[in-house]
């Protein structure tokens, strides 16, 4: 494998003024080419089908959280579609211009995302990514449950487990909004589980969490 990355970093100063070096431009070329492999020829974006194909090549299920992380890295705006710009941004940042390099970049990506400072950004991103229409501000309960599992399931398994059960059981709320979504993360980070001893319903927790805690305590 050519150490193209090193070469580009050492010459990036020069590159800023003198234009892309050959190594870098080659990288961009390869990235673009890779894009074309998956993109739909008429719309020139990678559509859900293309993403599925990408995933199978990466040997990662397309519901895997790493794809979501990749979307975040790319700054994807629309769920299920990668534009060329987004593709370029992501892969450049990961310094990957081939499937194998991309695959190898995953572990580092996961580490990067789970760092608290990045996670604070990734978490709401995941919510916004799932909003299906322009004006919509909420996601449906089943979708929210899936997403919770995906995004928080590993770090906070017991809480997420109980929370998902509750969300499915209750019928007061049919959708989750951003405020409630952010509340879930705060809850997992701040509240002792399963004791719940430091949960104070007088502090402005979203009502859905007050009800969740009450439901837990009754059991």
């Amino acid at each position, binding site marked *: 494998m050519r150490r193209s990355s090193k070469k580009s970093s050492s010459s990036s100063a020069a590159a800023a003024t003198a234009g892309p070096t050959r190594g870098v431009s080659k990288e961009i070329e390869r990235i673009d080419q890779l894009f074309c492999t998956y993109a739909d020829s008429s719309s020139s974006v990678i559509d859900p089908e293309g993403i599925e194909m990408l995933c199978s090549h990466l040997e990662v299920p397309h519901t895997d959280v790493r794809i979501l992380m990749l979307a975040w890295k790319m700054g994807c705006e629309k769920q299920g579609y990668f534009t060329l710009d987004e593709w370029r941004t992501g892969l450049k940042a990961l310094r990957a211009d081939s499937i194998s390099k991309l695959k190898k970049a995953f572990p580092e990506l996961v580490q990067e995302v789970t760092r608290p400072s990045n996670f604070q950004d990734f978490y709401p991103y995941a919510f916004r990514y799932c909003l299906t229409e322009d004006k919509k*501000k*909420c996601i449906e309960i089943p979708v929210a449950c899936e997403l919770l599992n995906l995004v928080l399931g590993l770090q906070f398994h017991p809480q997420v487990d109980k929370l998902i059960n509750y969300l499915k059981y209750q019928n007061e709320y049919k959708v989750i*909004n951003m*405020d*409630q979504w952010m509340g879930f993360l*705060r809850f997992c980070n701040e509240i002792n589980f399963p004791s719940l001893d430091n949960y104070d319903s*007088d*502090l*402005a927790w*979203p*009502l859905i969490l*007050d009800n969740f805690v009450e439901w837990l305590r009754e059991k």
Partner: protein
Amino acid sequence: MSSQKKRATKVEPLKHRTDVDPKFFDKSWKKLDDAIREIYNHNASGLSFEELYRTAYNLVLHKHGMKLYDKLVEKLKGHLEEMCRSLEDAQGCLFLEELQIRWDDHNKALQMIRDILMYMDRTFITTLKKTPVFDLGLELWRDIVVRSPKIHGRLLDTLLELINRERMGDVINRGLMRNSTKMLMDLGPSVYRDDFEKPFLEVSESFYSVESQQFIECCDCGEYLEKVQKRLAEELERASQYMDAKTADKITGVVETEMLSIHMQRLILMENSGLVNMLIDDKHEDLTRMYNLFKRVPDGHSTIRSVMTSHVKETGKALVTDPERLKDPVDFIQRLLNEKDKYDKTISVSFSNDKTFQNALNSSFEYFINLNNRSPEFISLYVDDKLRKGVKGANEEDVETVLDKVMMLFRYLQEKDVFEKYYKQHLAKRLLSGKTTSDEAERSMLVKLKTECGYQFTSKLEGMFTDLKTSQDTMQSFYANISGDTDGPTISVQILTTGSWPTQPCAPCNLPPEITDISEKFRAYYLGTHNGRRLTWQTNMGNADIKATFAGRRHELNVSTYQMCVLMLFNSTDGMTYSDIEQATAIPRAELKRCLQSLACVKGKNVLRKEPMSKDISQGDTFYYNDKFTSKLVKVKIGTVVAQKETEPEKMETRQRVEEDRKPQIEAAIVRIMKSRRVLDHNSIITEVTKQLQSRFLANPVAIKKRIESLIEREFLERDKVDRKMYRYLA
């Protein structure tokens, strides 16, 4: 004399060149000694004051002051000791008298002795700071006589014994008592206090401790308090008659403690005769006594208040939660009003209108009236009843009084917005059916509500009155304007402004052709004079007078619009099935069933006959014109739209509407508060919102939280990024 001289000129006393007679002192003293004896023997008249004075004067001048003083002390001591012994021999009751007499004597003697020794008093004694003669005399009396072991105890015991006898009902020699205590007071405040007052108070304490125990075992509360009042008066009188003024407060304090404080709980809570029973039986005299007596005692009034409060709360709670009582709303409210009257009277008569008691009563009423969430509805029904039927035998003032009293209950309501909803409904029914007895009373009620709750509350209600007035005018000009046949039915239209009236929009049913004619004429007329308006017939609300003939007799039926539509069908046929009627009239199913029931199933009003004869209306029923209908009255009223207690489903519906109405009010309050505060924490918002809305209803913190979250979603507010408890207003 030169002014420069600074030294004060000295005047030397004239020095007598007298020979110093060694026996001078003794001779002089003998004179004085004899004189003193004579004085004590009541033989002073034979003495020469001037000579004695001069004798003493000379002694002091010749520097014999000290000796003279000592001799005086010795003389007095001796005399008093002797007197003591004879006093100790005095028998029984004479003891006090003897003491009295001797004391008088001593006082008089002292005066004379002092006068004689005045010079010594003024010079020698003052210079050497010795006790002046008179005071000396008193001190010696105190130490030798009063505090002599035998006399001291006997004096005290005698005094206490007499007081005890007087307490038990005997008459004693008060003059003697007064003189004795005065003597002690003259001897010095500490003498009076230590030698009489203190033991007196201690003895009294045990006396009243015992007596109060006896009384409380055998008396009921009222009797006991009477006795206490008597004893207090007695002790006060006794103290004023023969004790120092300050003792009065102390002894009454003892009585209050022993008889009232210690037994306070037991008295107030005494079964069958305590405070609660007095309140129930309106025992005003006993209550006044209790109030006045317990005023003197720490926590007396607060204990009475708290017992009264729990009693009122309890009886009130029983009243409002009794399912029997809930069957008749008017009676329910009347009972509450009666309760209020009863307690108002008690507080005014027995508790001298004490504001703290009035407040306690108010908070008790507020507590239990809100235990029943139908209270707002019932109060409205009560007012409805009164405005409909008038207050029995009442003139204008009485009606005002009744309404004022109802307003007092209204003030206790936490859910005033629920009341508003019902009041509107009931008022609408009254106005539309023309069933109110007094327009003034209606207006007066509105004014009261406006004063209590502000313009917002009553603006729509006033709109209703205005609509009716305007409708009257409109009808007049309509009939003045139309030409053509006046044979058809006459209509009277009430035009209601949507939004002012609590009407449910309903699709109009099919009116009989006789009616559609004139009603269309009216519609045309109205829309001709009022541009851009839309009229919708509210067929669920009108009424009609129909002339009908049954078995040859003519009657006039007063029915609802729906009933009219149904009945007019029978002009063209004698019998119709349910479905036919439904189709022809297009009256909604539930209403139609009620309507048919009222026409066919009610005894005395069955202008229709139903087959089968069951009480319930079902699809397969057939209805016939009942030619056998009879009634004693020519005018028969069938089905008026009277305000009634709501059924369960209606109640749920109203409640739901109230809850829905509250949401925007809560949101408006939140936005108002956040707009002015900009940033505020969660608990403060809850408090502020509750406060702002409390004149209309008690806001639920959970409901407020929900509204906050909704406002966050709609981006009126946001959570602070650092402190999640804080909310920020988004302009």
